[in-house]
């Protein structure tokens, strides 16, 4: 057997290699947040937030330096700016760990497609970062607000949205691919989360913000942004966002359902049942009623009582039935309101009814495909809720019902 050619080839290989893609860990900066704003002179202003890793090593803990650094640059395209950042930053940037993409309100109003293409096309970005629209302040401000527990602003933001989605569901849970496929699909319009700043942006950007108990400035979730194609058209508040998310893929949430229907009473005087939704499934349907589409939402799921302010005896079946009925009416009403609100105010099908319609009635959909949003805005909505109340914590009767009546 002749081994010489292989040796030759292997040696050749050794010389050929130039380790093109090799970057040592010491030569990179991890980008965790990207903020896109409208530039003053050029098209965009891009801000990157990079982690200062040396702050996280054991030996240098508690040093003076800040946990993250931000840097802004103006230019005409995001992709060029991304590679130009080294004007002011020492190391090469890697974007695979980007956690949040902040988009300024102004930019969003003009359309986001132009720079999203870079994120979609580049192999560097993962598909697990949040897309948020910043309300009020410019997007770059949000990359600078520190927080004592999670020192890097974007990591904090990412964690916050995750926890919020799991606990209550007030975030649309949109990822890049979802956003882009919603933009390209005719039967759906994209949404994105919205955030706002509470407090003073100047104070938030110094690490002194971390030293007081009452944090002076804080980034808060604030519902979601509604897009028509790729342009921002408006915002929805937190409850509406939860309701929107319920039509998509909500897992957990909690509800306070009024015990008795007292139309006139203010919520301050009402009694509430606190319910935790533990499992739910939503089905969207579009039926044809005399040639016109009817949007149908059907919610099924399980709930449990977390607390009750009502005097009813929870050990009784009737009470369970009553509560269930109240809950279902409440939920159906809530979601109906949200959908109708979207229909009236924006006329943009963010729920994906168009896609559902396409799957169910392909031929009919083809007819209205081009102006589906108009059809959507005029369509009738029917929401049906079928939540089941299963259990009530570790106590049976509430002590409220045990309190001896005064009169």
């Amino acid at each position, binding site marked *: 057997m002749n081994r010489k*050619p292989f040796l*030759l*080839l292997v040696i*050749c290989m050794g010389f*050929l290699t130039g380790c093109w893609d090799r970057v040592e860990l010491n030569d990179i900066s991890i980008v965790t947040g990207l903020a896109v704003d409208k530039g003053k002179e050029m098209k965009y202003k891009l801000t990157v937030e990079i982690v200062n890793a040396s702050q996280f090593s054991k030996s240098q803990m508690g040093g003076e330096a800040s946990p993250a650094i931000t840097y802004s640059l103006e230019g005409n395209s995001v992709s060029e700016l991304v590679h130009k950042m080294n004007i002011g930053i020492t190391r090469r940037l890697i974007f695979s760990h980007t956690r949040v993409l902040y988009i300024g309100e102004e930019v969003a109003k003009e359309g986001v497609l132009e720079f999203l293409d870079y994120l979609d096309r580049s192999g560097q970005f993962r598909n697990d970062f949040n897309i948020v629209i910043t309300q009020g302040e410019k997007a770059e401000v949000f990359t600078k607000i520190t927080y004592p527990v999670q020192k890097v602003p974007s990591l904090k933001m990412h964690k916050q949205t995750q926890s919020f989605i799991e606990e209550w569901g007030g975030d649309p849970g949109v990822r890049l691919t979802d956003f882009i496929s919603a933009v390209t699909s005719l039967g759906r319009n994209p949404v994105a989360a919205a955030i706002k700043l509470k407090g003073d942006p100047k104070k938030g950007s110094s690490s002194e913000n971390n030293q007081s108990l009452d944090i002076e400035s804080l980034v808060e979730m604030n519902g979601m942004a509604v897009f028509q194609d790729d342009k921002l058209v408006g915002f929805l508040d937190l409850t509406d966002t939860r309701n929107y998310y319920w039509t998509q893929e909500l897992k957990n949430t909690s509800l306070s359902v009024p015990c008795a229907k007292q139309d006139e009473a203010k919520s301050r005087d009402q009694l509430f049942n606190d319910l935790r939704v533990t499992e739910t499934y939503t089905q969207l349907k579009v039926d044809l009623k005399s040639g016109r589409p009817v949007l149908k939402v059907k919610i099924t799921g399980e709930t449990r009582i977390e607390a009750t302010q009502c005097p009813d005896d929870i050990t009784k079946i009737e009470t369970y039935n009553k509560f269930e009925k109240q809950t279902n009416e409440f939920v159906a009403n809530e979601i109906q309101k949200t959908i109708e609100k979207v229909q009236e105010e924006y006329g943009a099908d963010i729920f994906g009814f168009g896609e559902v319609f396409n799957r169910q009635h392909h031929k009919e959909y083809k007819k209205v495909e081009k102006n589906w949003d108009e059809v959507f805005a005029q369509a009738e909505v029917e929401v049906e809720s079928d939540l089941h109340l299963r259990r009530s914590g570790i106590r049976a009767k509430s002590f409220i019902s045990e309190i001896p009546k005064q009169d």
Partner: protein
Amino acid sequence: MIILVTFMFCLIFCASIGVITVFDLYLYNQPLLTIVKANVSFQRGTSQWMIYSVLLVGFCYSIGVDYRVRKNKKTSKSS
């Protein structure tokens, strides 16, 4: 024939260049000469020197094989 491996190498190489030239002609609508030139010539500023050197290695190898076959034949004949 004694130089069969080298001959085959050259034959297959030229023929395959011919094949891709025909396809390029179909796709690009450019004169034949430019396409052949593009397919054979060495483009600077790219890493194509690697494949050219590999081609050279292949060519040298085939010559080596032929040489060895010839030597073996001679020794077997003489013995």
